[in-house]
């Protein structure tokens, strides 16, 4: 049930963004914006009043509810970059590039939040801000992959060969996600990072709180990516107006 809610919301957000990109017009984002705000408010209330304080870590474990929900939007953004890349290589239409850039930029924001909230949780629990284990290192590499992608896009603006190359790069970059996700399994115990909590099993109150968090962050991603798509379209229109 919880998995279906999260997967359904994520898929709906992805399809909605792809639809917006393909339609080439900017309908209102008010609906998804309000849904994101309402679910973020509910999530925060559940973190404070509903989710119990964990017995071993105590209050610090509440960081879990703001660390984990960033993962899904980051991965979703990078998958949309790959979809946009494939669409551009097939059609050479600019709206696919806009989707790719929006996915990478907003995905990178959420990936940055993974890397910022992780150490804030790690320091009081592990005693270190950072350890060079497989999950943390691979997440940092993923962050650099998409930072490089955005630099590539920014500096290679307008060149057809560069647009092709950055599309291929965006498609290849997504292959890093399964490696990052399964890094804890690949480390075979040589890591401090816990496995995916959904696979471990959580008390229902914690499971529902993290479910609402995942949905809220997916919706927030949708709103931000829709706004970024609109900006990409305005930039293209500005270029056209300058050429005319």
């Amino acid at each position, binding site marked *: 049930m919880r998995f279906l809610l999260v997967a359904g919301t994520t898929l709906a957000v992805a399809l909605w963004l792809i639809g917006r990109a393909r339609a080439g017009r900017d309908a209102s984002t008010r609906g998804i914006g309000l849904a994101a705000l309402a679910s973020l408010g509910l999530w925060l209330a559940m973190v404070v009043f509903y989710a119990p304080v964990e017995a071993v870590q*105590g*209050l*610090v474990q509440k960081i879990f509810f703001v*660390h984990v929900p960033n993962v899904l939007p980051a991965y979703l953004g990078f998958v949309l970059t790959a979809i946009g890349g494939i669409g551009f290589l097939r059609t050479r239409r600019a709206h696919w590039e806009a989707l790719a850039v929006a996915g990478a930029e907003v995905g990178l924001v959420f990936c940055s*939040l993974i890397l*910022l909230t992780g150490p804030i949780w790690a320091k009081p629990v592990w005693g270190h801000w950072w350890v060079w284990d497989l999950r943390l290192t691979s997440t940092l590499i993923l962050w650099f992959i998409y930072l490089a992608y955005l630099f590539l896009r920014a500096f290679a603006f307008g060149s057809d060969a560069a647009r092709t190359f950055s599309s291929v790069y965006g498609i290849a970059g997504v292959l890093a996600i399964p490696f990052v996700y399964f890094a804890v399994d690949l480390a075979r115990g040589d890591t401090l990072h816990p496995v995916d909590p959904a696979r471990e099993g959580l008390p229902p109150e914690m499971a529902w709180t993290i479910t609402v968090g995942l949905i809220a962050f997916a919706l*927030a991603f949708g709103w931000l990516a829709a*706004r970024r798509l609109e900006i990409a379209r305005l930039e293209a229109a500005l270029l056209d107006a*300058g050429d005319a």
Partner: protein
Amino acid sequence: MEGGLGWVLAAYAVVLAVLTGYAGSLVGRRRRLLRELEAARGRGASRPG
């Protein structure tokens, strides 16, 4: 801080600051582009021919 509340508040504050800051920057970029687009179209319309 007692029981790790400081760490918790720091983590939530970072996420809130980054997301609201980024959302604000998108709104600002959109407004600026709309203004520039309007100005560019105005220049195009006043050009002879």
